[in-house]
C-alpha cells in the first residue's frame, strides 16, 4: 500500500546525509566524499558503473543543497559549491529539475511490436492501420514511426497482444504536458509550463527528476538566534506512524529547535470563512463560479492556461500564507518554516514572501534522523491542543475545502452552491476547459494538484488511504467541527487584515 521505492530510499539517504553534515557543521569539509560514501552504503548497484553512480549522487546532493543543476554548477566539485549553497540565493523559482545523467532516455515511440508477433496470416494490425504505417519485415510486423499517428488500433486488433503501448512515465505523469523529450531523448522540463507539482518526481523509475531542497536553509535558521516557528500542514497527521496523535511530532520539532508549532489548519479556518464571504459577494452576480486558491499548482495552471478564468480564482491567499502573515504581523522578526507534503509550495513561498523556508515531510524526517531525533521514542504528557476545526484540518483531503466552505455559509445559502472538484492536474485541466466552454456548470470548483488532495502529495511518508483515516479521527475527536467555531479565526476575520487577499498587481509579471 505504502511502498517506499528504492528511488525514494536513495533520495531520502541523500537528504539525511546532507542534513547531517550541515547539522554537525562539517558540510564544506566532508561533502566531497559523500558520493563515495553513499555508493558504498547502497551495496546494490543500480546502474552500469560506480563512476556513473557517483556522478548521479553528486547531482542529487547539489539539489539537496538547494542548488540548481546549471552548467556552471555542473562542472564544479561539491566542496566549492557549499559557500554558494549557504547563501540561499534562489537563482530560479522553478523547483523541479532533470538530473540529466540519471535519465535513461526511455523510448519515445508509443507503439511497439514485441516478439509475441507470430506473423499470422490475418495481419489484422496491417489491416487496422489507417495510415499504412505497418509492414512485415523479417517475419514480424514493423511500425514505421514516421507514419504512426498513435491511434492504437493495431494494438486493439492483435489477437496475440503482441503490440505494446509504452509511455515515458514522466511525460505521462505530467498533467500540464511540461515534459518533452529533448535532443538525445533525455527528458526536458519546459519551465514556462511546469507548475512544480512534483508528480514526475515520484513517477520516474530512475529517479531522474527531483526538486531542490531547502534543508540547509532550515538548519541554518534553526542554528541562528532567530525565533523559528514550524507551520505544519494538516496532512502531517499520521505521517510519522503515530496514528492520529501528532504530539510527539510537535515535541520532536521542539527538540530540533523550533520555538513552537502552529497548525496551518488555523489559516485554513480563516480562509474558509473569508472564501465563504467572497463567494456570497461575487457568485453568481459578478462571476458564475469561484475556484479555491489553496493549491499553488492549481492556481498556476489556471493563470498560465486559462487567462479568462483567472478572475474566478478566489482572491484569498493560501492557508499557509495566511498563517505565516498572521504570525509575522504579531512579531515581524519571527522566521516561518512551512512543513507539508508539497513541492509547489516552495515556489509559492518564494512569491508570497512571508515564508522563510519550506520542507516536505520526507525532508523533515531526514532532518530528524540527521539530528538523532526519534519521533517514536518521545513520550508526551500534555493534551493534544485544539488549534483548528475539523473542517480546517480537512483542507488536506480532496473535498475538504468544499466542505469547509459550505459550512462557513449561512444555512439557507448552502443549497444554492453547486460544487465540483478536480484532483490531479490532468483532471483540473479537463474540468477547467469544460467550465470555460460552458460544457459543464458549477458555482464552486475545488482544484487540487494531487490525487486525493494534499494527502497524496509527492512529499508524504505514508499512503493517503491511511492518513485520511487518521486525519478524520483526530478532527472528530477534538470536537471543534466547523471553522465558524474557531473564535481565533473569527477574531482575525473581523479585523479584515489586508494580508488575507492576494495582491494581484504585485504578482503580475512573475514568470
Amino acid at each position: 500500500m505504502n511502498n517506499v521505492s528504492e528511488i525514494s530510499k536513495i533520495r531520502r539517504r541523500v537528504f539525511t546525509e546532507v542534513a547531517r553534515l550541515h547539522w554537525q557543521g562539517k558540510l564544506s569539509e566532508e561533502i566531497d566524499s559523500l558520493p563515495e560514501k553513499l555508493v558504498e552504503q547502497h551495496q546494490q548497484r543500480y546502474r552500469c558503473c560506480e563512476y556513473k553512480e557517483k556522478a548521479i549522487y553528486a547531482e542529487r546532493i547539489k539539489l539537496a543543497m538547494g542548488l540548481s543543476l546549471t552548467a556552471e554548477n555542473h562542472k564544479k566539485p561539491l566542496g566549492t559549491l557549499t559557500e554558494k549553497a549557504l547563501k540561499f540565493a534562489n537563482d530560479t523559482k522553478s523547483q523541479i529539475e532533470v538530473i540529466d545523467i540519471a535519465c535513461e532516455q526511455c523510448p519515445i515511440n508509443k507503439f511497439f511490436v514485441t516478439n509475441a508477433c507470430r506473423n499470422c496470416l490475418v495481419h489484422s494490425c496491417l489491416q487496422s492501420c489507417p495510415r499504412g504505417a505497418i509492414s512485415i519485415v523479417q517475419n514480424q510486423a514493423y511500425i514505421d514511426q514516421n507514419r504512426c499517428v498513435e491511434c492504437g488500433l493495431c494494438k486493439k486488433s492483435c489477437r496475440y497482444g503482441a503490440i505494446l503501448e509504452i509511455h515515458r512515465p514522466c511525460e505521462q505523469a505530467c498533467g500540464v504536458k511540461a515534459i518533452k523529450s529533448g535532443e538525445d531523448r533525455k527528458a526536458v522540463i519546459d519551465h514556462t509550463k511546469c507548475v512544480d507539482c512534483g508528480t514526475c518526481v515520484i513517477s520516474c523509475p530512475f529517479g531522474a527528476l527531483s526538486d531542490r531542497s531547502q534543508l540547509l536553509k532550515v538548519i541554518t535558521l534553526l542554528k541562528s538566534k532567530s525565533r523559528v516557528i514550524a507551520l505544519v500542514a494538516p496532512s502531517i497527521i499520521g505521517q510519522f506512524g503515530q496514528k492520529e496523535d501528532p504530539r510527539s511530532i510537535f515535541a520532536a520539532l521542539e527538540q530540533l529547535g523550533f520555538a513552537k508549532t502552529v497548525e496551518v489548519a488555523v489559516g485554513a479556518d480563516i480562509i474558509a470563512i473569508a472564501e465563504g464571504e467572497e463567494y456570497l459577494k461575487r457568485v453568481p452576480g459578478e462571476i458564475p463560479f469561484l475556484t479555491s486558491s489553496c493549491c499553488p499548482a492549481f492556481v498556476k495552471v489556471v493563470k498560465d492556461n486559462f487567462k479568462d478564468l483567472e478572475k474566478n480564482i478566489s482572491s484569498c491567499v493560501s492557508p499557509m500564507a495566511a498563517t505565516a502573515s498572521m504570525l509575522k504581523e504579531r512579531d515581524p522578526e519571527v522566521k516561518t518554516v512551512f512543513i507539508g507534503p508539497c513541492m509547489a509550495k516552495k515556489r509559492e513561498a518564494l512569491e508570497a514572501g512571508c515564508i522563510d523556508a519550506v520542507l516536505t515531510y520526507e525532508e523533515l524526517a531526514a532532518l530528524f534522523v540527521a539530528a538523532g531525533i526519534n519521533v517514536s521514542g518521545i513520550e508526551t504528557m500534555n493534551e493534544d491542543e485544539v488549534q483548528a476545526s475539523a473542517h480546517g484540518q480537512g483542507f488536506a483531503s480532496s473535498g475538504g475545502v468544499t466542505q469547509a466552505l459550505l459550512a462557513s455559509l449561512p444555512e439557507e445559502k448552502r443549497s444554492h452552491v453547486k460544487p465540483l472538484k478536480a484532483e490531479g492536474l490532468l483532471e483540473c485541466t479537463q474540468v477547467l476547459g469544460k467550465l470555460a466552454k460552458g460544457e459543464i456548470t458549477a458555482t464552486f470548483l475545488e482544484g487540487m494538484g494531487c490525487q486525493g488532495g494534499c494527502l497524496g502529495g509527492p512529499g508524504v511518508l505514508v499512503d493517503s488511504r491511511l492518513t485520511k483515516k487518521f486525519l478524520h479521527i483526530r478532527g472528530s475527536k477534538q470536537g471543534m467541527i466547523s471553522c465558524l467555531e474557531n473564535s481565533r479565526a473569527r477574531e482575525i476575520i473581523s479585523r479584515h487584515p489586508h494580508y488575507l487577499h492576494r495582491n494581484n498587481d504585485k504578482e503580475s509579471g512573475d514568470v
Partner: protein
Amino acid sequence: MEKIAVEICVGTSCHLYGALDLAQVLEEVNMKYPERLEIISRTCLGNCDKGPNVRLAGKLLERITPEELRNIIIQLVQKKEKENE
C-alpha cells in the same frame, strides 16, 4: 507451538526507509499463518544507519526489503511447521 518473535523497528529512521511496508508484510503473513508470529514494535533497534531493520527470532535483518522479508519469514514459518509434524 512456540511463536516466532518478530521485532519490527518503527523508529523515525526505519520509518523513513520503509518500515511501514515491512509492517504490512508481517500483517499479511500473520493472516496467512495465524498464531505463528509474535509481532513486537520497537522504537529503535540501535542500527539506524542500516535500516529498515527487523529482528527475526533474535537475528537482525538490516536494509531488508519487503520481498526479502516475506520470503525469509515464510520459509521460517514453514520450517517450524515441518519440525512440529
